[in-house]
């Protein structure tokens, strides 16, 4: 089971969990990313590359399904403007194997940071905006899965 969605609307992590538990797996792992209020940030806007983004998300989900014995993969990424505390991204994995569920979840979160065309702009309450810069640590986290594949 694969469910990939790029959407403006919020999602419900508990509902995704319930969907994957219904597949009778031994393990369900999940990750939710939320907008943090660091340094007084009040909101975040996510821009993306229509068409390419959907393809990239589907390719990541397919890669996870091919690398680990999974029963289900949910990958939801929001776009548009989100205020502090709102959910941005959800990964939920069902597998009969604990390690596969945990690893596939970490893999998708690491790769999302580097392999999908999203750009984040932070916004302060005084109206100031700033594009988030990519981090070297994100590349390193994503690359460890290339090493692992060898």
């Amino acid at each position, binding site marked *: 089971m694969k469910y990939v969605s790029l959407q403006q609307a919020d999602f419900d992590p508990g509902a995704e969990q319930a969907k994957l538990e219904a597949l009778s797996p031994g393990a369900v792992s999940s990750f939710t990313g939320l907008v943090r209020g660091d340094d007084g940030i009040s909101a975040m806007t996510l821009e993306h*590359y229509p068409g390419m983004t959907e393809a990239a998300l589907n390719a990541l989900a397919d890669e996870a399904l091919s690398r680990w014995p999974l029963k289900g993969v949910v990958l939801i990424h929001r776009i548009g403007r989100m205020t502090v505390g709102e959910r941005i991204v959800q990964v939920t994995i069902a597998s009969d194997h604990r390690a596969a569920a945990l690893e596939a979840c970490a893999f998708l979160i690491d790769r*999302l940071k580097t392999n999908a065309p999203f750009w984040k702009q932070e916004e302060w309450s005084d109206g100031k905006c700033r594009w988030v810069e990519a981090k070297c640590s994100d590349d390193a986290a994503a690359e460890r899965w290339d090493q692992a594949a060898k």
Partner: protein
Amino acid sequence: MTKVKILYFAWVREQIGLTEEQVELPAEIETVANLIDWLAGRSDTHALAFADRSKIRCAIDQSIVAQDASIGVAKEIAFFPPVTGG
């Protein structure tokens, strides 16, 4: 001359002031680097956006490529900063 759609995202889009433009590429433009040189000459804002090429990423027909990649028969070429999703 080949017709190509050029897309811009994030601060590249903001600096150039365009989300996309249709261009007629001269035949001598073979690589992404050639294209960046040529685009940088189109206006001051293009020049500004492409000033630091280490911060520019490119996708040809929605696949990420390096700046030495050949353009070939591309229909859609996008320029943007390193991605920051997740």
